[in-house]
């Protein structure tokens, strides 16, 4: 009987123990927030969308106690859906405010101004991309996902993701 083999896996899950949800929150919050900044722009809604995403995910997060990698992917899936709903609504209900850029500690006012200018410029350029390109850019540069993770999340092939991102970056580069 092979009963003994089962113990390592079970023990591993046993001692996997209590995730530090504060740490998970601290890690995931910037990813989701920046996903929205790239996906919908520097709007006042970004924090609301982020909060909505977390509230949806948080209630069921215990399902992912064993697989926080899965939790991260799932969180971004929720964020993508929240973004789609928001963009649909935005088509009906313009206009939007521009959210203030959070000052980066340690930067001079001049650096802050340059940063804000570049951020606005990038946001404007991102808005010119096709929706698919923009979503992938948000996943890549906002949520800091790898091409492989994006492929997994979107159902595209990894090479297709790379191609779309490359074209998007080249487009932006040409317009920068």
């Amino acid at each position, binding site marked *: *009987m092979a009963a003994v083999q089962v113990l390592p896996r079970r*023990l591993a899950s046993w001692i996997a*123990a209590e995730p*530090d949800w504060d740490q998970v929150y601290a890690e995931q919050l910037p990813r989701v927030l920046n996903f929205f900044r790239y996906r919908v722009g520097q709007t006042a809604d970004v924090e609301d969308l982020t*909060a909505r995403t977390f509230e949806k995910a948080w209630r069921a997060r215990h399902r992912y106690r064993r697989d926080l990698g899965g939790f991260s992917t799932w969180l971004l899936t929720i964020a993508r859906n929240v973004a789609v709903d928001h963009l649909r609504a935005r088509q009906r209900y313009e206009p939007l405010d521009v959210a203030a*850029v959070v000052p980066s500690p340690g930067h001079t006012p001049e650096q802050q101004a340059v940063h804000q200018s*570049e*951020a606005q410029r990038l946001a404007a350029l991102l808005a010119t991309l096709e929706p698919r390109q923009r979503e992938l850019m948000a996943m890549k*540069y906002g949520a800091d996902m790898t091409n492989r993770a994006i492929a997994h999340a979107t159902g595209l092939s990894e090479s297709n993701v790379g191609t779309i991102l490359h074209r998007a970056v080249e487009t932006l580069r040409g317009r920068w």
Partner: protein
Amino acid sequence: MTSGNPRTDKMSDDGWLQALRTDPSPLFKAQLRERLRAQEPASETRHDWRRRALVAAAAVIVVGGLLSVPGVRASVAQFVSLFRVINVVGVSVDSSHIDRLKAEQLEIGSLIGEHIQVVQDPGPPVNVASIADAAAAAGMTLATPQWLPDKTQVIETTVLGERVVRVTANSQRLQQVMDALGINDLAVPAGLDGQVVNVRVPPVVMIRYDHQNARRSRLFQARTPELTLPDNVDVRALGEIGLRILGLPPMEAKQFAGAIDWHTTLVVPVPPNASSFQQVDVGGHRGVLIQHQPRNQSPTTTIVWSTPERVYALVSIQNVAEVMAMATAVR
């Protein structure tokens, strides 16, 4: 983005694509965190706790499996041996063994699952209002840490009732596993099929502590589980096969199997991704301390130890010194 020609610098790497990234404002971060805290699901821990308790039971069951694997040579055993966990030792698991078994499609769960009969199922764990209620439900006085980190409070107390299972040996399965691992210097004993190990896991109590910064610890305790198996089982040979399956080298497994008192010792396989493990003394009792950091999770410390009457496990993401101090203070 720092030289005299910013545009050229920007184009030379992806830095300019990061321009939109920013940290959440501290206010937003704090406010959202509070909103999420207010939505803590009341039932969050129930399934998890049940799973842990079952795994704890499974650990004992596996000891039964470990003990029952090879040595049943007689046909029908009329007498049984009684095993009670008094000592705890750790054994490193060779991850390549697990990988090889997976490659052979020897599905671990089904291997044991199809040979387990649940004789007494306690049902789901029950949340109780206090430690005193848990003691009453479990029918025993409860030990608790007499030292706790500052600002620690009990946030949950749960009891899982007694569980009795029966594990039936299957020599063909064992042979498959040994073949897959290349263990060909040991033989599966004839007459193994159908031999039965009975495992009784008394009620398990879990006390969850919340420390500062939302760090938590869980203390599990139960009267020592008992298992019985046919009296004529060659426990030592059985244990040796089990140790080899875990990945111990042949000579080490033979020596270890000969030295250990299998009637009183719980072998805790330490998973290959544990960062370290060591034998520790917990208030005069031998235990195993395992440090483990699952991907994307906090460093976790698990201490498993036992007294002649009781088995304990303390699982925590506190620092090791504090976890050890808590364990030592359990009385």
